[in-house]
């Protein structure tokens, strides 16, 4: 946590220098954040060219708006917030139906079986395929929670939505991922309720 704070203080310092028109600071800011902004954009847009365009737009916006960073949030939250809105813009231009919230008609499983729980992400390609099948809103939450390790309060700030919505979307995303992974992994075996669960090894 201390390291994260130090990094963020550095980023805040870079933004102050960028606000003064310092191009070397912009270069450092890009080096600090390009990977994470690009990953965020790519996971949601699923197109490297579009993600590269968004990265460029985000950095230019940060350059233009550096003076408006007030330090009330972390620099990462601020820049991912810009990225979120640029991505929404991009999806809107594509008239992407994936902007729409999936209506998860998830059957009530009062007792999720171990089959659900153990239909795990054994195969990275399967996981990628299932993640790409989620709506943008769900992919956003999964990425920010597990790639960026952000708290739900920060995710709510970036996504500009209530805390309850973040938690609900994560719940649905998990359920949808499990169903998808179970569908792609027919050799997964339901757990023996009397004993140790049997795990399918690919």
């Amino acid at each position, binding site marked *: 946590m201390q390291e994260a704070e130090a990094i963020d203080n550095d980023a805040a310092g870079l933004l102050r220098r960028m606000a003064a028109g310092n*191009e070397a600071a*912009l*270069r450092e800011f*890009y080096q600090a954040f*390009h*990977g994470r902004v*690009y*990953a965020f954009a*790519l996971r949601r847009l699923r197109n490297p060219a579009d*993600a*590269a365009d968004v*990265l*460029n737009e985000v*950095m*230019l*916006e940060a*350059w*233009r*708006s550096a003076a*408006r*960073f007030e330090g009330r949030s972390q620099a990462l939250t601020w*820049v991912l*917030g*810009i990225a979120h*809105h*640029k991505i*929404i*813009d991009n999806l*809107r231009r594509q*008239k992407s139906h994936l*902007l*729409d919230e999936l209506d998860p008609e*998830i059957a009530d*499983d*009062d*007792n999720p079986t*171990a089959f659900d*729980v*153990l239909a*795990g*992400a054994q195969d*990275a390609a399967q*996981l*990628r395929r299932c*993640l790409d099948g989620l709506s943008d809103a769900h992919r956003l939450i*999964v*990425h920010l*929670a*597990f*790639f960026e*390790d952000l*708290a*739900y309060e920060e995710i709510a700030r970036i996504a500009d939505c209530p805390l309850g919505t973040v938690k*609900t979307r*994560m*719940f*649905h995303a*998990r359920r949808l*991922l499990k169903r998808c992974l179970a569908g792609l992994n027919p050799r997964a075996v339901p757990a023996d309720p009397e004993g140790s*669960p049997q795990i399918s090894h690919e």
Partner: protein
Amino acid sequence: MNKRPDHPDELLPWYVNGTLANGERQDVETHLQSCERCRQEVAWLQNLRTQVKDDTAGSPGELGLHRLLREAKAQKSAARQWWRPALAAAAVVIVIQSAVLINFLNRPAAITPLGGPAAEGVVLQVKFAPNATEAQIRELLQKTGATFIDGPGALGVYRLRLEDVTATQDQAIQRVIGELTARRDIVTYAARE
């Protein structure tokens, strides 16, 4: 959503990524001591987190940096030039006003001098609904006479200019804001900057 009221389902992802506040984390840890299902869910989420982190995306890297620096320089250069058209326009106004003033001094009854500031338009800050389409936004802006200046910023705020409205036309400005905010399916926030 099927929530199990006695199980902290909603908190488990954030327990796994280590960001729960102390109180919530302790509640989850206490629950996990006696709940096999939630322990299995935590194991699944840990596996998911590992796989998500391992799925590296790459980046444009140095090429992206060169593109950024080139465009940032171009923006800076364009920004330095902004005053030229404005200065030219102001120079014209000064010349005209000077001519009028001279005429006014000579024939005060015959001439109405130019007055008031050059019309620069009014700037609004606007946020659009996430599901608003480009066609909807375009139609609404055309209807209200607003044009984009820049955005979105970190909070999703766009800056729009009202071309045909001056800063003193409060009623006209409020009317446009009303037209924008009446379309709650497109605009979630609009206010004068």
